[in-house]
């Protein structure tokens, strides 16, 4: 296998696994609350900058800084639920969506005021180490991103599909009212969903900081690609978000290498549009129709 091919695969997997994490955050919130959270990109930004604070500005060792940042993002999720989602949850879906867009802009400008416009370069647990993979020079941090992302995805999958808590979360996602009637604490599960979304996006931000640098405008492009990933994978499907994220990451890398570097984003979104036209439920989604 050529060095270039290995480089592309590893880069695609690293990028794609970040998209998968962010895509999962989209899906969890949407399934539980019926809302697409268009501030998800800013969650990633805040997660990255919270790590900037704990790692660079406070100088904490990484084994303390990272969990502290994730804890902060869990709390951020709770605050977002309480301040943004809960007051709007009984409004129309359009109102809630616009609300998340608007609050995303507020968060982005808040990040600008807090951390400034000059980018940061958070350090990786592996520094700038490079490993030789069949002759290709691969960043150790990229391998770390892949490993951690899949670990988190595995933990989330276990939580949702192998635990009673996950069963309750799926029940709420299927039918909120029926779940409530069955005695499931819907409000508490909403809070848990936002906590998990905060942790997932925070982890994505922490992982990409050393790769792509931290700047206050970083979140939206990542969220856009993650959104394309869940469209391709299946909007309500956890495996779909994972596969969709990986596919988008690989499509970016291979598209840039073999088709056009200038228009690789266009290629990714073209694939998304094709899926919407030909298979709108995505690879793993279920086709849902409404009876007249």
């Amino acid at each position, binding site marked *: 296998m050529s060095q270039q091919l290995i480089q592309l695969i590893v880069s695609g997997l690293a990028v794609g696994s970040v998209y998968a994490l962010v895509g999962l955050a989209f899906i969890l919130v949407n399934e539980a609350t019926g809302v697409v959270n268009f501030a998800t990109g800013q969650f990633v930004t805040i997660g990255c900058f919270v790590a900037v604070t704990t790692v660079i500005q406070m100088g904490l060792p990484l084994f303390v800084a990272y969990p502290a940042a994730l804890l902060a993002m869990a709390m951020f999720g709770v605050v977002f639920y309480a301040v943004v989602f809960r007051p709007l949850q009984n409004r129309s879906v359009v109102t809630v969506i616009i609300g998340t867009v608007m609050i995303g802009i507020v968060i982005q400008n808040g990040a600008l005021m807090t951390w400034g416009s000059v980018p940061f370069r958070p350090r990786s647990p592996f520094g700038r180490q490079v490993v030789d993979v069949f002759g290709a020079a691969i960043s150790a941090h990229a391998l770390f991103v892949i490993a951690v992302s899949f670990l988190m995805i595995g933990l989330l999958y276990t939580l949702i599909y192998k635990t009673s808590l996950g069963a309750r979360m799926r029940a709420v996602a299927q039918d909120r009212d029926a779940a409530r009637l069955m005695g499931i604490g819907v409000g508490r599960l909403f809070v848990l969903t936002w906590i998990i979304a905060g942790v997932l996006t925070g982890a994505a931000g922490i992982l990409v900081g050393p790769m792509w640098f931290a700047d206050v*405008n970083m979140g939206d492009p990542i969220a856009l690609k993650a959104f394309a990933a869940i469209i391709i994978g299946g909007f309500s499907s956890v495996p779909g978000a994972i596969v969709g994220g990986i596919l988008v990451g690989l499509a970016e890398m291979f598209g840039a290498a073999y088709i056009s570097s200038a228009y690789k984003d266009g290629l990714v979104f073209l694939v998304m549009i094709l899926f919407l036209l030909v298979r709108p439920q995505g690879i793993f989604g279920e086709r849902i129709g409404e009876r007249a």
Partner: protein
Amino acid sequence: MGKKRLITRRTALSGMVAGAGITIYAPRLSAQSGEIAVGAMVPLTGPFNVSGQQYNFSLQMAQDDINANGGVAGKKLKVVFEDVKDSNSVAVNAFLKVVRDVNPPFVFQSSYTTQNLATEPEVTKAQIPCMYAGGGDAVHFKKNPWMFRIRPYDGLQSLALAKQATDGLGKKKIGIIYVQNDFGQPGAVAASKIIKDGGAEIVGMEAYAFTDNDMSAQLQKLKSAGADCLICISYGKDGALVLKLAKEMGIGLPVVVSSGVMVPAARNLIAPDELVNVYGVMDADLGPERGPAVADYAKRFKERFKIDADPFGSCYYDGAMILKQVMDKVGPDKEKIRDGLKAVKDYKGITNVFTTDADGNMVHSLAVFSVVPGTRDLKFIRTISP
């Protein structure tokens, strides 16, 4: 029995209208009260805010320095800032707002070609002299008599990049990686033409989107195509990413980078070993070796704003000082200011020496730097001019 309304609806509405009027027309009132207000279109938010911040600060400093030295034309100078973000339509609306609300004798435009181009027709309609720092040649090709560029134009940067790669480093197979927009693409095309005309070969030209974070595919393609030198036309953060990736991937080629990568905010993102074999072009380095005036400017800027000054900001400081010099002679008359700016010759500023040519370009040289090994400090190599 209902409560008596203390304030009628009519009174409240009148109050709101009066308040809005005062808010809208306050700059005009302020200008009339003994100040000369000039406009400044600056990306205060959005992805361009890293450089926007530089000239936001440098213009604040210029305003204060000018007012501490008697103001301009005997009055205090007031710079009225408007946020132009990264949007052409916002830039145009911001310009129109300043013209309507402030009626300034002069406006500073942003440092982005795309916004300068969008605003140019309105500048002609308003007939207000402007300084701008967008480098795209398309702006001075308009030959707008009201617009004056205070930075080197991109054609000069392309010349400097090409000359450093070929004449400076003696390389013959050049690969170009560039940001896909109306800064990067024309610059890449211009550089490739100069390189080919000089007898060297372009082995590949690879683009990336401004929001891209992984350019490894592009770098790999250029290396595989047999490049012996890379030219990188980019902004700060994306250029820093290119250099980081090039080191990680073991590309091992000299890289000549555009000015955005050389500014302190970008260089501080790059480790010293990632700057080995990197050369850059920049308007100027604001190091102490440039003399006491530059050192003083850089020191005061850092003390006040807590970040390093860069030439994208200092050119606006120079522009403000040039404006003061002109307006002290001719007052706030737009046509006289325009004519005064046309006549600027050999003005020695913090960043450069300014002389206005027939196209409104005021800066005609760029400096080429290498990096002192093991550091992020720049070492001057030579000046390039047409």
